[in-house]
């Protein structure tokens, strides 16, 4: 029964059958071809039998193991490895169809490879999940055929595997290094102007060329006999809250990933950097009410807490209520903090509704309002219009893009910092803003 289930047939079988039918039809006119066809028929039958025997004589002829991490990073390419071994005494052709988690909606993934006797090969591929949650890998289906290639045998190998997709910790690690080494500019990610100086003293160190000579510590120089300079550091232990709007406006997807997930990924990145810089990081999420508050802290555990906290976030995409947010911040966050508010405004009127609450929050905290450029609309702007109707569409698209800039101006007029960013560059822009605000000592 089992071998019937694993019995499959290749296209070669059908080609052969087709050829035979063709030959026999010709044989109608030329009888000697019919004789040849008959011989070929019996030969193919023999081949079929031999092929079946070759494949089904051995059980467990193929070994396969799937290797991947326990956690996947949302919105990033996560590597998966399949290690396959051929235990047949002959070399084989393999077609591997891995049963990917259904959330990926990939139905056409298959790998073809040739495997010599006893040979071990590796298949590497990447999956890009766009939703947090549990992902279920099924079996790996390996279809084996010999050099005759008439029959195919299916092996269901590997094991069913559950992988949890977490907010993007890959991005977190990537930006961590860049931010610590102040490389964000050098990397060409974005150029920012750093204004101001920090006055918190850290240490006295030897002068090296390039140090600011205004900071030479003459007393120390006199004592040591060579130039010494004071070194200052950024202020520490400031609170950084990532406030995530989980409302209706955040449902919009870009490249499969919703704005909410961009925001979640980015808040993980920024929290990590804040913690590394000695600040305290916290998370607030809200929609029609404030759903959760993770108080800012700089304990060792905090990053893991944040990761788990963000992983768990469920969404209903309700209409957001900023008054509830204001009240919660007023009560729970008493120390002046950097509030990074991830939200989205599509029009000026949408902003005007929420502006009073934003202004109130700004009175107590340093508020950065982060919202998104609509890259889909921008694509319309950068396309050539073919007729008058398309000119109108383009005009409207330009107006929408322009309105985003008006929103920025409106917010700035009320002393609220803004980041208007394409979803893909959200993390970089947020980090830069954080570093800028810190160096300016605005918190």
């Amino acid at each position, binding site marked *: 029964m089992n071998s019937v289930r694993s019995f499959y047939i290749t296209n070669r079988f059908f080609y052969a059958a087709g050829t035979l039918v063709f030959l026999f039809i010709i044989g109608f006119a030329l009888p000697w071809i019919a004789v040849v066809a008959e011989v070929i028929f019996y030969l193919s039958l023999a081949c079929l039998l031999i092929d079946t025997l070759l494949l089904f004589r051995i059980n467990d002829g193929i070994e396969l193991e799937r290797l991947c991490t326990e956690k996947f990073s949302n919105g990033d390419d996560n590597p998966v490895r399949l290690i396959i071994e051929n235990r047949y005494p002959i070399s084989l052709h393999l077609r591997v169809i891995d049963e990917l988690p259904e959330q990926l909606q990939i139905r056409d993934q298959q790998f073809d490879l040739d495997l010599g006797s006893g040979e071990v090969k590796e298949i590497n591929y990447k999956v890009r999940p766009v939703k947090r949650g549990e992902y279920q890998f099924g079996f790996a289906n390996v279809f084996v055929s010999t050099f005759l290639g008439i029959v195919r045998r299916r092996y269901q190998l590997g094991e069913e595997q559950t992988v949890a997709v977490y907010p993007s910790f890959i991005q977190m690690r990537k930006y961590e290094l860049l931010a610590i080494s102040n490389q964000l500019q050098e990397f060409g990610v974005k150029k920012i102007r750093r204004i101001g100086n920090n006055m918190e003293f850290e240490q006295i160190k030897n002068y090296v060329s390039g140090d600011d000579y205004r900071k030479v510590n003459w007393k120390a120089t006199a004592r040591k006999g060579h130039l010494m300079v004071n070194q200052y550091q950024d202020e520490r232990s400031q609170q950084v809250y990532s406030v995530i709007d989980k409302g209706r406006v955040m449902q919009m997807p870009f490249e*499969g990933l919703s704005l909410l997930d961009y925001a979640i990924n980015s808040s993980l990145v920024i929290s990590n950097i804040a913690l590394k810089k000695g600040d305290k990081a916290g998370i607030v999420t809200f929609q029609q009410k404030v759903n959760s508050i993770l108080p800012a802290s700089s304990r060792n555990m905090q990053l893991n807490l944040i990761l788990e906290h963000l992983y768990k976030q469920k969404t209903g995409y309700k209409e957001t209520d900023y008054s509830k947010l204001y009240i919660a911040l007023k009560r729970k966050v008493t120390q002046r903090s950097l509030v990074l508010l991830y939200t989205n405004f599509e029009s000026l009127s949408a902003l005007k509704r929420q502006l009073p609450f934003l202004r109130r929050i700004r009175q107590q905290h340093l508020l950065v309002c982060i919202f998104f450029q609509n890259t889909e609309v921008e694509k319309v702007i950068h396309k050539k219009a073919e007729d008058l109707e398309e000119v109108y569409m383009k005009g409207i698209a330009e107006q929408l893009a322009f309105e985003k800039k008006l929103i920025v101006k409106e917010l700035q007029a009320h002393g609220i910092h803004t980041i208007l960013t394409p979803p893909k560059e959200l993390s970089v822009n947020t980090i830069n803003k954080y570093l800028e605000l810190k160096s300016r000592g605005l918190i």
Partner: protein
Amino acid sequence: MKDKKYVIFLVALIALYVVSEMRKSGQVNWSSTYHEEHKIPFGAFAMHDLMSDMFDQAPPKSEYKTLYELAVEDSTMGNPLIIADGVAMDNNDFNALMRHIDLGGTALISARNIQGPLADSLGFIVRMEDAELAYDFRAIQEALSGELEETITLNLTDNETKEFSYSTIATTSYFSQIEKENFDVLAVNATNSPVLISYKGMKGSLYVSTIPLVFTNYFILGEETSQFAAAMLSLFPEDELVVHNEYYQLGRREVQSPLRVILSNPSLKWAFFILLFTVFIFMFFESKRRQRIIPLITPLKNMSVEFVETLGRLYYRQKDHRKLAVKRVQYWKDYVRVHFNLKTDHFGDRFNTDLSSKSGQPLKSIEALMELVKRIEEGAVISEDELIKLEKGLNGFYGIE
């Protein structure tokens, strides 16, 4: 688990069908076939049994070809016995038949309805009553169970008459009109209309009858009625071959399917069966699952472009070209301010040259664009063409290909 449910359901369905079919089988098939192998009431199995007793020197056989084909191609016509519901020969058949009679052969044609050259040339008309008795099973059953009987008077030789009583179903047809000089009446029904006549004026003898049902199992197995059939059959010479020609009732007895040609040639037969088998294999193996079912999850859709298009169409229907032009200029001015750091509150030659040098666009195209922009700023009426021109100008400026 789900699969099992389907299988059980399917098996139950098939079982139900089989049971219902089995319950149906009690019905009797009353259709008249006159076929040598049929044991149904109106088959002719009993007649062939009877005939092989009567003609033991040359046992009768059945043929399934037209008289013409038998005469010309096979040249073994024998003495034809034709029993059918209706006979309509064409000229070839009729001529073959007449030649056979002319050469001294014998033929008996028994049919409820006879038309064509046979009736026309020889000169008789067959009339049929209660036509539905030929196919309506319920009417047949009622007619047979009823008391109504009719007498047929047979007069084969001049002095000897015999009477047989039949159910009316057997005698629904009779000759309503015959050319008296051509025919001898051999048997009449209760109303004295002929039911069996013989053609005279030729060397052989041709008998025509309108009561084919007397040759069927139902009536031959009756004690009395079988004698009439036997009497009719004894009109054939005892030592000559009688051929029961079933063509006129059943047609050709060979495979009727359009595949006849293919199946008759071994090479094509191979091709056909390989093809059939392959299609079957294809359906079976290609429908097999290669990986588990992946349920459809509709991904989130970004509707912003649709939103822009709807809004654009709405404005397009209003056709307020100026309003749109102002929007576009507003965006352009913002673009100039952000990208080239130029003030856009006052336009002039200075602005044009600055913009040209900063954007790298030729002064000429900048000037052309500026003229349009100025017109829009001044509040002039903007035409469709100008809007298109603005689009082209802006495309050039933004570098959109």
